[in-house]
């Protein structure tokens, strides 16, 4: 009983606080305050998360690379005080970004050069509006939330193109072309990889999709979509497409620093650069949130008895886990070439996502199979996705293998 009471309070605490503040306001402004508080809360929570994600990235990359990462920044008014493991680094970075000179090239298209970072941050923030952060925390409960998410997210590549073209820099222009080619290639598998979810859950509303994953077998085996053959394949396909959509390694071609210096960011400095940086992490967080919502059960606890932890904590925990996964991938993998990138999309990702859609259809048709038939269902579903994966993968890597070498005779 006590646990249930704590649960219910923590669960609705954010809403209760918001309602308290709204009650306190005069009648005509209440709807405005109501929405403003939601917006400010999203900005505050994800702004803080954004501040610490690059720090986590640098720390984790440091650990992956036998070094420490940032650990020097302490409190500015305490000269020999504790270093706090570098936790104040984000604030030092923010001050630096704000005080740096903003350089705009003379030949640049000034208006577009200015608009690009503003647009990219705006659009990447818009995507947060529909994510269900908790059992009761849905900023905008749209009927077509999934469609909205992709609609809002699709405009970020436009901003990248604007940045690259407006800079009047050849590297930036090449980056703009790459960004366009990349988004044309990966928008399709990204959307197709989540269509099976829509098929199975029968809804475009993200909250309903989370609710559809909300039961446990024996109290500890969650019914998350990732634990089905088509769901697992869809999750991997989604992960790869999400990496490509958010321009992260190994798909960071528009800003490939060893080839194009910084790509579309070459001519940006100071706070505008920081805005791009911010948008990249916002986009990454939003896509993580979507992945968690669609495949990893959203705010659902993994076991029935762990439900006493508030749902929004589960959501944040899963999002942070996804972010750490993205960082790990960045610290490990090499970058693809642009033609390999598009070939991967069209010859591998798109066919696999379509096959996976058929797989989900099979899964939905065989929902009534129980007992030993359940095993058959799993086997067939696994075969439907694994066999094309192996065949397509073999075709994609045809003729390439590690070599053995001969030695000179003498």
């Amino acid at each position, binding site marked *: 009983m006590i646990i249930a009471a704590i649960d219910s309070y923590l669960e609705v605490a954010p809403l209760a606080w918001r309602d308290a503040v709204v009650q306190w306001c005069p009648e005509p402004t209440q709807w405005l305050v109501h929405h403003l508080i939601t917006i400010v809360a999203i900005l505050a929570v994800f702004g803080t998360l954004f501040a610490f994600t690059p720090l986590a990235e640098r720390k984790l990359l440091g650990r992956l690379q036998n070094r420490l990462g940032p650990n020097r920044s302490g409190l500015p008014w305490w000269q020999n005080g504790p270093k706090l493991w570098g936790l104040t680094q984000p604030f030092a970075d923010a001050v630096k970004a704000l005080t740096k000179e903003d350089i705009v090239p003379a030949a640049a298209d000034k208006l577009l050069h200015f608009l690009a970072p503003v647009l990219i941050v705006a659009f990447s923030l818009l995507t947060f509006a529909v994510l269900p952060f908790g059992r009761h925390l849905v900023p905008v409960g749209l009927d077509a939330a999934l*469609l909205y998410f992709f609609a809002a997210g699709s405009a970020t590549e*436009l901003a990248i193109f604007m940045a690259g073209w407006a800079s009047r820099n050849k590297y930036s222009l090449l980056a703009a072309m790459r960004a366009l080619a990349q988004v044309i290639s990966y928008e399709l598998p990204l959307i197709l990889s989540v269509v099976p979810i829509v098929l199975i859950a029968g809804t475009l509303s993200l909250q309903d999709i989370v609710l559809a994953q909300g039961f446990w077998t024996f109290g500890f085996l969650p019914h998350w979509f990732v634990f089905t053959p088509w769901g697992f394949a869809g999750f991997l396909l989604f992960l790869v497409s999400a990496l490509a959509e958010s321009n992260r390694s190994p798909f960071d071609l528009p800003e490939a620093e060893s080839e194009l210096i910084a790509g579309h960011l070459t001519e940006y400095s100071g706070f505008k650069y920081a805005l791009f940086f911010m948008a990249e992490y916002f986009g990454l967080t939003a896509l993580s949130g979507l992945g968690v919502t669609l495949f990893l059960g959203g705010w659902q606890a993994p076991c029935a008895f762990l439900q006493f932890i508030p749902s929004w904590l589960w959501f944040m925990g899963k999002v942070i886990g996804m972010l750490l996964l993205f960082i790990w991938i960045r610290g490990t993998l090499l970058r693809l070439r642009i033609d390999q990138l598009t070939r991967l999309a069209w010859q591998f990702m798109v066919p696999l996502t379509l096959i996976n859609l058929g797989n989900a259809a099979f899964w939905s048709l065989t929902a009534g199979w129980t007992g030993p038939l359940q095993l058959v269902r799993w086997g067939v579903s696994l075969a439907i996705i694994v066999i094309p994966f192996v065949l397509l993968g073999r075709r994609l890597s045809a003729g390439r293998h590690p070599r053995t070498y001969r030695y000179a005779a003498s």
Partner: protein
Amino acid sequence: MTFALIIISALILGCAAVAMALRNLIHSALLLIGSWAGVAAFYLWAGAEFVAFAQILIYIGAISMVVLFAVLLTRQGDAPEPVEFPSLSRFVTGLIAGGGVAGVLIGAILGMPFDVRTAQSAPALSVKELGAQLMGPHAVSLLVIGLLLTVALLGAVLLASDRRPDQPEDTP
């Protein structure tokens, strides 16, 4: 409500008109994207959420990318269109034709008494109902559209690829 509609209309028409008058193709394309976003806002205003998101997804997410890609591939990004006398006469002709059509349409709209529904709130149509509509009475149209899209995609790929039989591709 009407005030919001007027603002949205001004956005759509302003962006479209300036885009059609500009010389720089990239600026034109970007302004048209603004206009398409305005149309999406109009759909939202009218209560057609699904269509609004589809409009953004298709127009801003896909068609605009294709447009910009075409502009860059045909090297029109920096070269303004040259002004020639024939194009000026064409411009006048186009303006007269467009103005005439506009005059006729506006006159007709203003002179016609429309039987307007009194309810001000938008009719609610959930995604599920829309899906039922699509798969029910309009299933054949849906199939035809799917076929059209497939054929169009294949045709576009064939048109845009420059692989001629006598000239082997030399890019890796």
